[in-house]
């Protein structure tokens, strides 16, 4: 039946091959027969050697991992618009891979009986399918019902590209070439380079490369004063351009650059400088191809133009994290680097959101990361917690200003959501009017929390007091911090509430020193490492550091290290707290990467004996620390 939903499906499919080759009418007809399937994260769509379903699948939302379960490595990741599970249907054999929803996913299931006539009738559709499965088959229609056509090549190919012979893989070059004519002034050329954020511009005559101008040329010839900035590009460009054919491997590209000691290669149609330029290859591209390293990722981030492009970079940050953990690099260093990268992602989203606004911000503002992000302890994808503080404005502009920042915050929150940070379930986000306020409003708010320390106020201040500046004006944030310290000092009873809040996190072990596990819910029988082990440490560190009025250290491990310095008699305990915290965080991060979640819940049976002992050792430290603060702030008098 033709209806609103089938239109909706057709409208999505029309942008993706092979559906894009179908006539609108056919596509609509096809869409009427489709089923929409929802799969929760980790749900199996089909298992290896399972009998084939009568439909194949297109990913509408989310991502699907194709795995060979024996090795458990991901062979392919299907994204929006990707097709999977078609080959076995055509070959009429069982599934050779397993398909698992990598995240929450919506699929379109297309019955093969409905689709097959189109594949047979429409040459482009057929060709596309053949090409995507076995690139060397000449006659697409010869063996469609036999099993060889879409043979095992797919598997082989994927395995290779993922692992070995990496250096010999063809390099990806940028097809968007930044060019200017020979008579362009150097000043304008530099502007173009700046706009496109590239380090080299190609001087072309009808797309035939005649020279190249790089940052180095500008430095050596213009900045030195040898030439004026109004000189034409032609005068100072490097020529002739060293050109190469576009089919290059990573190694070849690297060699070419080293050989001529240049940072950019121009790729032309036939490899000589007599044909049109088709692409440009920079050292940066080579570095990107060689793998993930923080500098490359930061650079890649700076170049993205759309929020959507950040998501794959985030995926690579996770790979990097995995690599660091595998190499056993110290946790302090890992968390610094990863936090830096995550912050760079957020900053980029903020910058892009600012651009989307119709006018620049009316007053100075600061974007604050709260909670675990504020403490630089967030390495995996978790929820967003953030807030905005902006300069005080006169009564007249009050509403207007608030509306501006709320609108801006909504853009940022959506952007962060798009790159993989879930919305905060408690709405602690800058797009919530309660978390988007002027400096004075924040002071009032904080003062209210401090002077009315009920359970909720303490909890809110727990989250808020761990803020750190992500973007914007540092001075204002400083002022707010000062205010908080003064106010807490003036209201010492607040400490007592903070401490009792800090002691409320449930204890990690029971009477017989067994792990206490969750009693109910999806995580039944799992150990909640966040609430039972990390939070007690974080909460205690916050209280202690606040009592010493130490500003701008919000990382828990760093706080303990500072405390060890401030209180030499408790040095040992604090250092072991710092160590425990890092160990626990590493534990959580590893678990999170393993299961592609936040790592909060740990299935105890998957741990080795050694790991369990390590975990338990940290619990002893937690206990001692809790005793220390309850004695120091004399908690028994209150509760």
């Amino acid at each position, binding site marked *: *039946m033709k*209806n*609103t*939903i*089938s*239109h*909706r*499906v057709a*409208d999505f499919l029309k942008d993706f091959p092979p559906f894009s080759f179908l006539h609108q009418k056919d596509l609509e007809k096809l*869409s*009427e*027969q*489709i*089923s*929409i*399937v*929802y*799969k*929760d994260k980790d749900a199996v769509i089909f298992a290896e050697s399972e009998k084939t379903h009568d439909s194949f699948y297109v990913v509408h*939302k989310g991502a699907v991992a194709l795995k060979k379960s024996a090795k458990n490595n991901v062979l392919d990741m299907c994204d929006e618009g990707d097709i999977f599970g078609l080959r076995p249907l055509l070959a009429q054999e069982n599934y050779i891979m397993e398909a698992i929803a990598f995240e*929450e996913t*919506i699929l379109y*299931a297309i019955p093969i009986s409905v689709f097959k006539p189109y594949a047979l009738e429409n040459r482009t559709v057929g060709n596309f399918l053949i090409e995507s499965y076995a690139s060397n088959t000449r006659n697409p229609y010869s063996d469609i019902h036999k099993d060889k056509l879409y043979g095992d090549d797919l598997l082989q190919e994927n395995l290779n590209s993922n692992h070995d012979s990496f250096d010999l893989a063809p390099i990806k070059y940028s097809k968007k070439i930044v060019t200017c004519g020979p008579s362009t002034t150097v000043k304008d050329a530099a502007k173009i380079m700046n706009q496109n954020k590239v380090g080299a511009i190609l001087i072309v005559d009808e797309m035939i490369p005649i020279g190249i101008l790089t940052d180095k040329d500008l430095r050596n010839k213009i900045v030195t004063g040898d030439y004026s900035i109004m000189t034409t590009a032609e005068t100072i460009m490097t020529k002739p351009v060293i050109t190469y054919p576009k089919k290059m491997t990573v190694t070849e590209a690297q060699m070419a650059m080293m050989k001529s000691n240049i940072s950019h290669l121009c790729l032309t149609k036939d490899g000589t400088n007599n044909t049109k330029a088709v692409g440009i290859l920079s050292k940066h591209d080579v570095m990107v191809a060689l793998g993930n390293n923080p500098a490359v990722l930061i650079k890649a981030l700076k170049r993205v133009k759309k929020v959507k492009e950040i998501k794959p970079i985030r995926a690579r940050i996770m790979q990097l994290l995995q690599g660091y953990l595998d190499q056993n690099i110290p946790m302090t260093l890992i968390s610094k680097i990863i936090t830096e990268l995550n912050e760079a992602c957020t900053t980029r989203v903020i910058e892009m959101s600012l651009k989307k606004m119709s006018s620049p911000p009316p007053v100075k503002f600061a974007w604050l990361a709260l909670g675990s992000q504020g403490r630089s302890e967030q390495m995996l994808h978790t929820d967003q917690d953030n807030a905005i503080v902006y300069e005080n404005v006169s009564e007249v502009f009050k509403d207007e200003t608030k509306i501006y920042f709320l609108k801006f915050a909504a853009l940022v929150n959506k952007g962060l*959501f798009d790159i993989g940070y879930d*919305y905060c*379930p*408690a*709405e*602690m986000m800058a797009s*919530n009017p*309660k978390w988007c306020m002027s400096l004075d409003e924040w002071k009032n708010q904080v003062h209210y929390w401090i002077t009315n320390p009920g359970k*909720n106020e303490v*909890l*809110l201040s727990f989250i808020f007091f761990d803020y750190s500046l992500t973007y914007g004006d540092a001075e204002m944030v400083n002022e707010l911090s000062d205010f908080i310290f003064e106010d807490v000092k003036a209201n010492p009873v607040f400490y007592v509430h903070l401490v009792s809040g800090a002691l409320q996190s449930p204890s990690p072990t029971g009477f017989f020193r067994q792990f206490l596990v969750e009693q*109910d*819910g*999806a995580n*039944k029988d799992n150990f909640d490492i966040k609430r039972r082990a990390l939070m007690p440490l974080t909460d205690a560190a916050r209280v202690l550091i606040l009592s010493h009025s130490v500003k701008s250290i919000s990382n828990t491990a760093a706080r303990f290290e500072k405390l060890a310095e401030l209180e030499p008699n408790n040095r040992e305990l604090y250092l072991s707290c710092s160590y425990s915290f890092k160990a626990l965080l590493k534990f959580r991060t590893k678990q999170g990467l393993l299961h592609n979640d936040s790592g909060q819940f740990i299935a105890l049976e998957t741990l080795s004996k050694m790991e369990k002992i390590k975990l338990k050792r940290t619990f002893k430290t937690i206990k001692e620390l809790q005793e220390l603060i309850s004695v120091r702030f004399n908690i028994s008098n209150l509760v």
Partner: protein
Amino acid sequence: MSLFNFWKKEETLFDENITIEETRFVVLDTETTGFDYENDRILCIGALALQNGTIAIQNSFEVYLQQDHYDKSTAQIHGILRDFVLKRPTEMEALEQFLVFLGDSIIIAHHTIFDVTMINKALERNNLPQLTNKTLDTAYLYKRTLIKSHLFERKDHYTLDDLADKFDISKKDRHTALGDAYITAIAFLKIVKKLREKKEINLNDLFK
């Protein structure tokens, strides 16, 4: 709701062994000429069947009804013009078709009470028996996914737009009956997932 129903709610409605997955739900939405149960009329019923996390497009229902009552002011919301003809059955015919489609499935809608009351009023006018299907409301179920805390105020009413934003569901086709039903269906699936993260739930738990 009578006292009797109130007590009945606490009882087990369904066999414990019936899973949410195997249950057939009919997710529906109506476009009406207004919000007055007595005077306003249904212009369109959109409904789809949801079972095992799957919506088969073929097995969905979208009917524009022939109505005499028409209110210009709501036309800008639903976009259904009076003369817009698309195989329009009479109210009676549409209801009969709908009842066949619905069967004894559980009804899901957003602010279900409105749609169900609208349909019941129409049934009454046509001397047909009232709906006896069990109903679920995504507006209510969504609230259950939120953290229970005094830290932040929960809104009293969450609109379908709120849910679409929260769950990142495209708002294309918003304010067409079947389009809204689709958004409601996806929101329902995501709500069930959220509830399951907190606690394993079965069909009965959805009605608590």
